C-alpha cells in the first residue's frame, strides 16, 4: 500500500462507510442487473438493426441541440438571476426550477397547451407561419430543453454568485465594456460551473421520456429517441429493450467518464 493510501485508511468512519456502500450498491446493482440479463447471444443482430441506429442518432442529435438551446438561453438567464437587480428575483428563481419538480409528462402537457396546434402561442405559429411543433424533431428538442434547462441555470447561477466581482471591476477600469468583461473575465472564471451544468443538462436531455412522448409523440426516425424506443420495445421484446438500455448506459458512462475531474471541479 502506498503512503497516501495508508494515510487515507481509517479516515472514513464506519458509520459513514456502511451507508455509503449501501448507497453505491443501490445505484450500481440495477445497472449490473441489466448486464446480467442481457441477451448476449442475440446482441449482435439487435445492436446493428436499423432501428437502434436511428434512435441512437436521433437521441444524440436532439440532446446536443437541446443543450445548445439551454446554453444560449440559460447562461444569460443565470446572469440575470445572479447579478440582475430585479425586484422579484426570488420568485423568478423558483419559477425557473419548476421543470425540476414537475412530472415530465405534465411538462409535456403544458408544452402542448402553449405550443400545440391550438396552444396559446402555438395557434399563431400555426396560422401565421405554418409552423407546427408537436410531432416534429424540433418538438423533441424543445421538450428536452424544457426539462433540462434548470440544471444548467442553477449550475451557472451558482458559479456566477461565487465569482469574484473585483476582477470584473478591474476589467472595467481598464476600459472593457460589459460584454467584453463577461467574455474575457467572467466566463473563463466560471467555466467549470458552466461545463458541469452543460453535462448535467445533456445527460438529462438524453434520458428524457415523459415530456418528449407527450409533446412530440413517437415516430421512428423523427421523434423516437432511445428512451422511447426502450419503452416500446419493452412491450414486445424485453431482450431488445435491455440491449437498447445497455447502449444508452454505455454511451452515458463513456461521456461522463471522459469528462475529467478537473474540468468540473472549482479551481482552488
Amino acid at each position: 500500500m502506498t503512503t497516501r493510501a495508508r494515510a487515507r485508511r481509517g479516515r472514513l468512519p464506519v458509520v459513514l462507510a456502511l451507508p455509503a456502500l449501501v448507497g453505491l450498491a443501490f445505484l450500481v446493482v440495477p445497472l449490473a442487473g441489466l448486464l446480467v440479463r442481457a441477451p448476449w447471444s442475440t446482441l449482435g443482430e439487435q445492436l446493428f438493426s436499423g432501428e437502434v441506429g436511428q434512435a441512437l442518432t436521433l437521441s444524440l442529435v436532439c440532446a446536443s441541440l437541446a443543450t445548445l438551446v439551454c446554453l444560449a438561453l440559460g447562461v444569460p438567464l443565470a446572469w440575470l438571476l445572479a447579478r440582475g437587480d430585479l425586484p422579484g428575483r426570488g420568485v423568478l428563481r423558483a419559477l425557473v426550477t419548476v421543470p425540476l419538480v414537475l412530472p415530465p409528462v405534465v411538462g409535456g402537457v403544458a408544452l402542448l397547451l402553449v405550443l400545440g396546434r391550438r396552444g396559446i402561442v402555438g395557434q399563431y405559429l400555426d396560422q401565421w407561419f405554418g409552423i407546427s411543433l408537436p410531432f416534429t424533431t424540433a418538438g423533441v428538442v424543445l421538450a428536452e430543453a424544457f426539462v433540462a434547462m434548470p440544471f444548467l441555470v442553477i449550475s451557472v447561477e451558482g458559479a456566477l454568485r461565487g465569482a469574484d466581482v473585483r476582477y470584473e471591476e478591474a476589467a472595467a477600469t481598464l476600459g472593457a465594456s460589459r460584454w467584453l468583461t463577461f467574455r474575457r473575465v467572467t466566463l473563463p472564471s466560471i467555466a467549470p460551473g458552466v461545463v458541469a451544468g452543460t453535462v448535467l443538462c445533456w445527460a438529462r436531455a438524453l434520458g428524457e421520456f415523459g415530456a418528449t412522448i407527450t409533446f412530440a409523440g413517437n415516430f421512428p426516425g423523427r421523434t423516437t429517441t432511445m428512451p422511447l424506443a426502450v419503452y416500446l420495445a419493452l412491450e414486445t421484446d424485453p431482450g431488445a429493450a435491455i440491449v437498447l438500455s445497455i447502449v444508452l448506459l454505455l454511451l452515458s458512462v463513456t461521456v461522463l467518464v471522459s469528462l475529467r475531474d478537473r474540468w468540473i471541479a472549482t479551481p482552488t
Partner: protein
Amino acid sequence: MTLHAQLVVDRGSFRLDLDLTIAPGQVVALLGPNGAGKTTALRALAGLLPLTSGHIGLDDEVWDRPPASFVSPEHRPIGVVFQDYLLFNRLTALDNVAFGLRARGTPRAQARRRARDWLSTVGLDDHRDARPRALSGGQAQRVALARALATDPGLLLLDEPLAALDASTRVHIRAELGRHLGAYPGHTLLVTHDPLDAMVLADHLVIVEDGAVVQEGPPATVARRPRTDYVAQLVGLNLYRGVAEDTTVVLDAGSGGTLTIAEPATGPVHVAFPPAAVSLHPEHPGGSPRNSWAVTVAGIEQHAHTVRVRLDGTPPVLADVTPATVAELRLTPGMPLHATVKATEITTYPT
C-alpha cells in the same frame, strides 16, 4: 488639466466628505486609518461607486455629477493598481498588460508591442509568458503597475499598492514606484495607511479621518506641524533625503547637516528615525552618540503621554520626550539644546 473632485458619499452611517485637487504630474497621497474612507474615495474616482452628491471632473470633462451625469469606469481615462493586484489568472503577464489596450480598441500586434515595452520598463522581460500565479509578490505588483500605465491614463489610482508585500520587498519596490511616478506625466492618487509610502512618494498629503480631511499639505510640513494626535503619531517621523558615502550621509540642502549611520551605503538615500529615538541635552554630551548637533526649541506640543518638541537646527528634528524631561530641562521655545541620535536607530533606504 487639473483633476478636481468634491467627493460626498453616504454609506449607511458613514459619510465621506472630501475635496481633492490634483495637478498634472502631481502625486497626492490619501493617508488615514482603516475605515477612514480612503478606499471609498478611490472607488468613487474610479467610477466603481457613484457619488451621493458633489462632482468629479478633469478640467471640462465631467465624470460624476449627481443626479444627472455619470461616466462609467470603462469610459474614464483611468488606470488602477488594486491592493490585491487582481491580475487575470488565465492570461499571461503580457496579455494582462495588453488587456487595457485591446479593450480600448488597439489592434492586437500593436497592443502586444506596447505591453512588451512596458514589461521591459518594469524589468520583467523574462516573465512575459508567465501566469500571475507563478509570479512573486513584487513581480505581480510590477505587472499590475504596467497594466495600469499601459493605456496612458489621465488619472492613476493606487490602492495600497505595497501593502501585500513583505518588508524587504516593499522597500525595494517603493523606490522603483517612486521612479515610475516621477516619469509619469498624469495625475496620481495614492491611497495608503503606511506613512512612509506617503512621505517618500507624495508631493501632497491629504490626511483623512472618519470621512473628513483633518490636514493636508506637503509631507514635510504636515510632519512638522501635525494638527491632531493621530497625524502626529502617523507621520511623526524624522525623514531626510541625502547622499551616503560609507557611513556618512550628507543631507540635502532642505535640511542640511550630516548624519552617521550604522551600515555603510552609497548614493542617494532616505534616512529616517522616530522622534522617540532623539535625546535632548542642555550641552554637547560626551560618550558614544556620533550624531549630535545644536538645536533650538521651536515648539512644544502635548500628545497623550508624551511631549513632542519641534527643534530647529541643521537638520531640524522632532523629539518625543516625557513630561518629566520637559520639567527637568525647563523646556521653553527658543531655548538652545543638543539633540542626539544613535547611529543604530537610524534606518537608511536607498532612493
